[in-house]
């Protein structure tokens, strides 16, 4: 009996090692494929959010820029964009991942969860590059009032894991549904557009002059809380305990639901892909 237990443990350890190796190579593959055959290659991961920010700042600064935003406007826009992009890329790439990797699913022995997880990780790595862009912008904008605070380090922990949990949970849910109903791809893309505009990425809630009720509804958007948390870290403010609880509570809840749905439906994936 002892022997059997040992060999089972060995098998599990091997399986775990396999998953980790596959995961890291998938993440590498995702990132490499993004900018394959482009001249600038990996530089685009920094350049892309930077250029996007410049466009957004250029377009919106005259509309919202003079409003009561405490932060320098380019920094405000860029921080909003990169946080939302982390969630958006992770979920929209994961959405089709089960179907895209049909060959791997049906012909090799890879744990299914590797695919959504790898997309969340690779978009987190991209987020890391975008942080470089953010720091560049902050350095440039020092004369305009951008400041550096020690709280920036809190982005890595505890902020980042909470958003990763949230994105991963959502990725699990979406990729499970997509296997069965391909409509979700189109529904989600419309929903993402709506979500982008409902999240204060380039405006502040106070500029909207919302009534009490609509403000409450806006506050139900989890991305708003992740974003507020992130921005207060840039401003040098440690968020309140409530804000921590909201971010982690939502993150863990969505992750648990996602994992549950994924595990319940994964047995049938192969029949519907």
């Amino acid at each position, binding site marked *: 009996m002892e022997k*059997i237990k040992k*060999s089972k443990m060995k*098998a599990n350890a*091997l399986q775990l*090692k*396999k998953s980790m*190796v*596959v995961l*890291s*190579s998938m993440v590498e*593959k995702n990132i*490499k*494929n993004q900018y*394959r055959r482009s001249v600038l290659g990996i530089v685009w991961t920094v350049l892309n959010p930077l250029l996007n920010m410049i466009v957004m700042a250029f377009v919106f600064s005259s509309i919202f820029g003079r409003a009561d935003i405490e932060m320098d406007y380019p920094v405000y826009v860029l921080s909003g964009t990169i946080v939302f992009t982390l969630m958006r890329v992770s979920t929209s790439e994961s959405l089709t991942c089960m179907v895209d990797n049909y*060959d*791997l*699913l*049906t*012909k*090799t*022995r*890879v744990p299914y969860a590797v695919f959504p997880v790898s997309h969340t990780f690779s978009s987190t790595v991209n987020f890391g590059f975008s942080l470089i862009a953010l720091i560049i912008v902050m350095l440039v904008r020092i004369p305009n009032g951008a400041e550096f605070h020690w709280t920036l380090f809190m982005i890595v922990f505890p902020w980042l894991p909470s958003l990763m949990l949230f994105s991963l949970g959502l990725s699990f849910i979406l990729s499970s549904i997509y296997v*069965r*109903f*391909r*409509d979700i791809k189109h529904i989600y893309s419309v929903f993402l557009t709506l979500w982008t505009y409902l999240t204060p990425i380039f405006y502040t809630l106070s500029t909207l002059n919302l009534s009490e009720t609509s403000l409450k509804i806006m506050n139900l958007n989890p991305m708003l809380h992740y974003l507020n948390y992130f921005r207060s870290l840039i401003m040098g403010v440690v968020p309140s305990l409530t804000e921590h609880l909201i971010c982690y509570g939502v993150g863990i809840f969505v992750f648990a639901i996602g994992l549950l749905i994924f595990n319940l439906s994964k*047995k049938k994936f*192969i*029949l*519907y892909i």
Partner: protein
Amino acid sequence: MADLIHLTDSADDKSQAAQYVKTGDFELDEDILIDVNDVGMRFRMPTEKIDNMKEYFIKLIKGKLKYRNFHVLDGINLQVRRGESLALIGRNGAGKSTLLRIIAGIIEPTAGFVRTRGNMAPLLKLGAGFDSNATGKENIFLNGAMLGFSKREMQKKYDSIVEFSELKDFMNVPIKNYSSGMLTRLGFSIAVDIHPDILLIDEILAVGDAPFQKKCAEKIDSLRKEGTTFIVVSHSMEQVKRLCQRAVYLKNGKIIQYGTAQEVADRYLKECNEV
């Protein structure tokens, strides 16, 4: 080694087949690498493909969601020991590939279970696990990862893989530009170089040219001498007789004969000629 039991022509007796292909207790006998227990696979096929919500709900409400049960495999019992080479033969749709995929752990059977021991390399499709945009070199590492080997471990194997595949000049070319023969070579070279305990091969060896096929056969022979276990799905009875000791004849999802490769292949050929 187990006695070879040759089921006679009254092989419809399923329980008899079940008895004889079991040779020991998987939990206690470390020599048994694959243990297939009463495995059945049933697909519930909708009579028409529905993949959007509108249709699904309309059909659901109308009560028109109809399914047809389709038994691909039924009551399969099988054990394979270390160093054994087994061929799965049968006509198209007999369930050979499904059984191989269940053994590989890619799909879960709807009935029964499979237990395996050791490291397994499934070679079920040309270039599965390859990324067509990546170069040959990158794919060796990627494929190695799928089989559970880290970059450092693959680095050690890299040279011998390239040498065996004879694709040295093409290592920096994206594999979408490879020919199918080149893909097989690369896939096979990786799979044999990791020295798996179990190698599952699904009809892919027929692709390479004659010299490479010969090289593959030699490699398989040497692996077998080292104690690698094989399960091969093949339609070439010549290949079956040459590579395998034993064979299983599958028909409509059931094992109807288990015996030496020679016998089973002969019976299969005979039945094919009768049709």
